C-alpha cells in the first residue's frame, strides 16, 4: 500500500466527488486518476506547467532578454539533457513498481569504460562509434544484472540497485585509477559536441529518447505491460504476462538509458570520470515523481518527467543568473519542490469540481 494509500486515500475519499449514474462507467472525471494516455499527462501536468511558467516568468523578470535568449535556452536544455535521458529510463522502472538507485553510478561506469585508453585506441583505429556502443553496452549490462537480481533473486529493488550503486562506482574507480579520462578521439567529439539545425546534438538525443520513451510507454505492448506489472503484478501474471522477464527488460532499459546519458556526459565534459553521475539517481527520481509518475507504480508519464527535469534545470539557471548564494538556493529549492507539488495537486483538484 505504501505511500499511495497513506497519502492518496484521504484524497480519494474526499467528499467532493460526484455524478452517480446507473451505468457501470461512472463519469468520475473528478478522481485524480484521470483517463487515457495523453489526457493523463496533460491533466496531471497542468500544475507542473504552471510551476514551470512561473519559474520562466521569474527568469524573464530578473534576467530579461538574457534569460530568454536562444543561447540560454540551449544551456538549459543541454543541462537538462543528461539527467533527462536517465529520467526517461527511471520512469519505466518506477512505473513498473520498482526503483533504480544505480543509474548515476552506472552512467559513471559507462563513461569510464567508453573512455579507457583501450577503447579510445580502438575507436581511433576503427570507428568512433565503438565508444558509443561501449557505453550503451555497459549501461544495459549493468541494468540487466539489476533486473536479474531483482526478478529472479527476489531482492527488493531498493537494495539491489543500492548495491549496484556502490559496486559500479567502485568498479569505475578501479578501472580508471580514479583519474579523469579525457577524450582524444576527435571524431567522437565532433559528432557529439556538434549542432544539427542549430540545436546541439545532445539536445537532439534527449528529444529523441523522450519521444521514443513516450512511444514505448504509450503505444507498445512493452509499455502496457510495464504499467500492468506496476499496477497489479498478480493480475499481470494471471493474464499470462511473464512478469520476471519483463522486469529484467525494464531494468535493462533503464541501464541502457544510463548508457546513452553516459555518451552525452562524455561529450559534454569531454571526459569520463568515476565521479560523473554522482547522486543523479536522486535528481532523476525527484524529476520523475514530480512529473506525476506514481512512485507506487502502475502509472507513468514521460511528458511529466520531461517537465520535471526542465523545472529543475530552469531553477538552477535562474539561481545562477541571480547570483544567489548556494545555501539560499538550497532552502528556496526545497520550498519550490513542495510548492510545485502542492500547486499540481490543487490544480488537479480544481479540475474536478
Amino acid at each position, binding site marked *: 500500500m505504501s505511500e499511495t494509500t497513506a497519502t492518496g486515500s484521504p484524497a480519494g475519499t474526499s467528499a467532493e466527488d460526484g455524478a452517480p449514474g446507473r451505468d457501470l462507467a461512472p463519469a468520475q472525471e473528478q478522481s485524480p486518476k484521470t483517463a487515457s494516455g495523453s489526457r493523463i499527462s496533460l491533466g496531471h501536468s497542468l500544475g507542473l506547467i504552471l510551476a514551470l511558467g512561473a519559474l520562466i516568468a521569474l527568469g524573464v523578470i530578473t*534576467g530579461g532578454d*538574457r534569460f530568454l535568449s536562444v*543561447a*540560454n535556452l540551449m*544551456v538549459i536544455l*543541454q*543541462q537538462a539533457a543528461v539527467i533527462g535521458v536517465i529520467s526517461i529510463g527511471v520512469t519505466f522502472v518506477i512505473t513498473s513498481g520498482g526503483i533504480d538507485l544505480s543509474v548515476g553510478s552506472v552512467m559513471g561506469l559507462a563513461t569510464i569504460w567508453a573512455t579507457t585508453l583501450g577503447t579510445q585506441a580502438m575507436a581511433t583505429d576503427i570507428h568512433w562509434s565503438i565508444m558509443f556502443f561501449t557505453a550503451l553496452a555497459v549501461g544495459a549490462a549493468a541494468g540487466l544484472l539489476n533486473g536479474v537480481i531483482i526478478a529472479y533473486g527476489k531482492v527488493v529493488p531498493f537494495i539491489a540497485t543500492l548495491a549496484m550503486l556502490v559496486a559500479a*562506482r567502485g568498479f569505475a*574507480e578501479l578501472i580508471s*585509477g*580514479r*583519474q*579523469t579520462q*579525457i577524450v582524444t578521439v576527435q571524431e567522437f567529439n565532433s559528432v557529439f*559536441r556538434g549542432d544539427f539545425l542549430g540545436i*546541439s546534438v545532445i539536445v537532439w538525443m534527449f528529444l529523441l529518447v523522450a519521444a521514443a520513451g513516450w512511444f514505448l510507454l504509450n503505444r507498445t505492448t512493452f509499455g502496457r505491460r510495464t504499467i500492468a506489472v506496476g499496477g497489479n503484478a498478480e493480475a499481470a501474471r494471471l493474464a499470462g504476462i511473464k512478469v520476471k522477464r519483463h522486469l529484467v527488460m525494464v531494468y535493462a532499459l533503464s541501464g541502457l538509458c544510463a548508457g546513452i546519458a553516459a555518451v552525452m*556526459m562524455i561529450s*559534454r*565534459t*569531454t*571526459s569520463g*570520470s*568515476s*565521479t*560523473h*553521475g*554522482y547522486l543523479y539517481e536522486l535528481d532523476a527520481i525527484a524529476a520523475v515523481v514530480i512529473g506525476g509518475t506514481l512512485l507506487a507504480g502502475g502509472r507513468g508519464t514521460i511528458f511529466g518527467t520531461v517537465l520535471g527535469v526542465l523545472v529543475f534545470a530552469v531553477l*538552477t*539557471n535562474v539561481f*545562477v*543568473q541571480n*547570483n544567489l548564494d*548556494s*545555501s539560499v538556493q538550497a532552502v528556496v529549492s526545497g520550498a519550490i519542490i513542495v510548492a510545485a507539488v502542492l500547486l499540481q495537486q490543487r490544480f488537479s483538484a480544481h479540475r474536478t469540481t
Partner: protein
Amino acid sequence: NDPEEVESEDDAGASAAEPAGDNAEPGEEVVIGFSGPAAGHGWIGAITEGAQAQGEEFEDIDLRVSEGTDDVNEQISQIEQFINDGVDAIVVLPFDGAALTEVATDAMEAGIPVVNVDREFSSPFAARTTILGDNYGMGVSAGNYICEQLGDQEDAVVAEIAGIDSLPLTQDRSEGFEQALSDCGLEVDNRVAADFTVAGGESAAANLLQAAPEIDAIWNHDDDQGVGVLAAIENAGRDEFFMVGGAGSANMMREIESGDSVVEATVVYPASQAADGVRLARLLAQGRAMGDLVQSDVPREIQLYAPVVTEENVDQYLPDAFES
C-alpha cells in the same frame, strides 16, 4: 631532479624527490595509519596514492590505508581503530578538521604522533606536526595574477568558480581571492560553486557563462572540475577572457603549455602533502630528525608554497603534476 627518472614514475607521490640524507636509511619497522576523505576526486586520489607510494617505497613502513570517507563519524572510527591497533603514527587528512580534533587528541594522548595534512585541526594539541596547504595563499596568488593582468581596468568582470562551498578550504580560498582583488580595486562579479567534480564544473560554468555575457577573467578553484569548466567554455564558444586554475593538474598545465588555451595560469596546491606526511610520520615514529635540518626534531608545522604556474615556468612544474 632528473626529468628522465621522474617521467618514468607514473604516479605523483612517487615522483617526489628521493629521500635525502640519512633519512633514507632504513630504521625500525613502523606501522603508520592513513585516513583521508573519499577519493573520487583527482586531487584526493593523488594524495592517497602519494601516501601509498611512500608505504611501498620504504621497507620500514607498514602503511594501513583506511577507506576514504566523507563521513566524519566513520573517519573518527578509523582513527579509533588505529589507536586500538597501536599503530606507531597516524597521518590524517580530515574531511573536517574541527570534527576530528578530539579523536586526534586522543591519539596524541595515547602516545601516537599524529601528522595533520591539509585541513587543520582546531587545537594545536591534536597533531604533532601539521603540513598545511595554503588555501588563503592560493586565493591571494590567483587574485594577484588577475590583478597584474587587469590592474588598470576598473570595470573588469571577474568570475569565480568555487569548489564545495561548505568546506573551510573553499572559504579560505575565496577570502584570499577577494582580498587580493580588492587591493587592486576589483571584485568578484559572478560566483558559482561546483563540487570538485568534472560534471559539477561543467554545469556550473555553463550557467555562469550564460549569466555573464562578458567576462575578463575567471578563477576556477580546482583543476579537476576545470576539465568540465573548459568543456563548457568550449561549448559556449567563448574566449574573451582568460582563466586561472587551482591545484595544478597535469592537464591544466598542458593547456597552459599549449599557449592557445584560455587557461593562462594555475595555482599549485601540492598533492604531495600526504606523501610528505607519511615520511614525517615515519621519522616521528622512529624518533629521528629531518635530514636536511639542523633541528633535532621534526618541525611543528610546515606550510607548503602555492606558486603560480604560467607559460614561463610550466616546464618546471608539469613533470610533478598529478593527472586529474
